């Protein structure tokens, strides 16, 4: 009974009881019974996020670093998902969630706001580096820049809503890459 009341209170909208006892409820429910069932609610996502990256590379560390072309990581994910009855978390969740988590933890000047955000940023960076490897087109990677391209899903044809063909970008700053970043990958 206590358990079910606690669950109800975490899932209910903020109210007088949750306001007074928020910490008690949270410490009971988290982490084992933490839950969020707002999948596709209140509204489904209406935007496709494509995560891409480009790299700064040098030839044996002698030449000046130069940027590569953009590589679409999401396109690789989507290619792996298509035709699969059971897509892997690696393709369906890893980059998608890492991007959401990392960008939500960034503050002014795209710097992580706390230690958790730092870990999330490091995680996103390492996912991208793991996909690409230590070198890009024969040259050593010394920097990485990650960005998201947000394209709105077109409303259905019967809708009176005007088709917004806006595509926006969220470009994160360049981050240095060292051997340390590849540890354990």
């Amino acid at each position: 009974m206590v358990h079910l009341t606690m669950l109800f209170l975490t899932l209910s909208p903020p109210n007088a009881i949750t306001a007074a006892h928020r910490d008690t409820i949270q410490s009971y429910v988290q982490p084992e019974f933490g839950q969020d069932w707002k999948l596709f609610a209140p509204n489904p996502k209406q935007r496709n996020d494509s995560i891409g990256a480009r790299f700064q590379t040098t030839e044996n560390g002698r030449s000046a670093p130069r940027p590569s072309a953009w590589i679409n990581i999401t396109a690789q994910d989507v290619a792996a998902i298509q035709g699969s009855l059971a897509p892997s978390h690696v393709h369906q969740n890893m980059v998608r969630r890492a991007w959401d988590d990392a960008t939500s933890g960034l503050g002014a000047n795209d710097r992580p706001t706390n230690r958790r955000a730092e870990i999330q940023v490091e995680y996103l960076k390492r996912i991208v580096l793991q996909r690409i490897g230590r070198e890009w087109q024969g040259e050593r990677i010394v920097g990485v820049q990650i960005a998201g391209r947000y394209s709105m899903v077109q409303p259905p044809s019967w809708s009176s809503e005007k088709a917004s063909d806006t595509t926006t970008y969220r470009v994160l700053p360049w981050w240095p890459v060292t051997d340390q970043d590849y540890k354990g990958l």
Partner: protein
Amino acid sequence: MDRIRESIARWARLACTTRAPYQAAVFRIGLALVIAAFLLREWPHRRVLYGDRSPLSYDMALELGRMNESFSLLSWSGGRAWFEIVYTLTIAAALAVVVGWRTRTMCVVLMVGTMSLENHNPLTGDGGDNIIRIMVIYLVFTRCAQVWSLDARRASRSADATHPASHQDVTGVALWVATGLFLSLAFGPTGWPLVLWTLWGVQGVWWAANRWFRETEGRALLDAGASMLHNAAMLTIAVQVCLIYSTAGWNKVQGSRWQEGSALHYALNLEYFAPFPWLSALLAANAVVVVLLTYGTVIVQVAFPFTLGNRKVKNVLLAVMILEHLGISVVLGIPFLSLGMVACDAVFLPTAFLVWCGARCTGMARRALAGRGALPKAAATA
């Protein structure tokens, strides 16, 4: 006065007998199958997702685990060997739970294994992982192996046998000693380990009661206690499922896209959830279908908890929901979330239907085995 006393006694009897054994069994089989299938599917990616090659390095995972105050066996060592042991053991436990072999112990192993993996990298999960993680905890407290399990078969055999040798149960004792040794080497007596120690102790007491005090009041008391716990756990599972549908449903009611009936259109146009783009396009192309399915989803989710009072309506709605989950599993490419929900829905299936399914399944299995002549007659009819 007598009437009141009588009704209290009846309620107590109801509470102290194991309710819904078939529902518990189908829930156990369904949930463990989903976990086993998920872990086997991720086998090629296991080290990247949860293991020694994860972009969430051992140190990062450790720090995140401390922030979340979560429990994971994988925090003991970042090495590959330990990870492989935990991963493989979890799969083995899942399969053992499916067939109902030493279910009480294996459910605990499955819970610890699943929690360890999910908690080690919480940044890559989705709703499916969330359902699995919560339900596997509830499963531990159910008597889910009373039917359709190797345990049940063993119990009925040893009940038939008259000689005491059939009560010896060497495997059970060995398992109990092994888990006890593991616990004493591994843990102090606080937090989750305390829960595990308690479960271990109860298992020992129960075995002793069955071995030496079969006809005593003490054993009857333990039996009633276990039944009550089972009933409470089954109720918790049922309410949890209702909470899931209610939260999902009531939040959708407030969404403009669900109100105008276009939500499905948007969901079908998300790249990450379109394993078969032609199928998504086919569905999204028909405006009437999109609106009907969008409204239908919300109505069913909001209505479900309220239909539990009426058997017939509940069963119809249940069938609709299971079919929708199966559809979603393919169209949106989220099979483990959808099938996990189907396993949870199964808790509400009527007993008569489950018994009928069980009979059909054993009948089919027997015919298949007899057809191949794989088993001698005695075994096939056992």
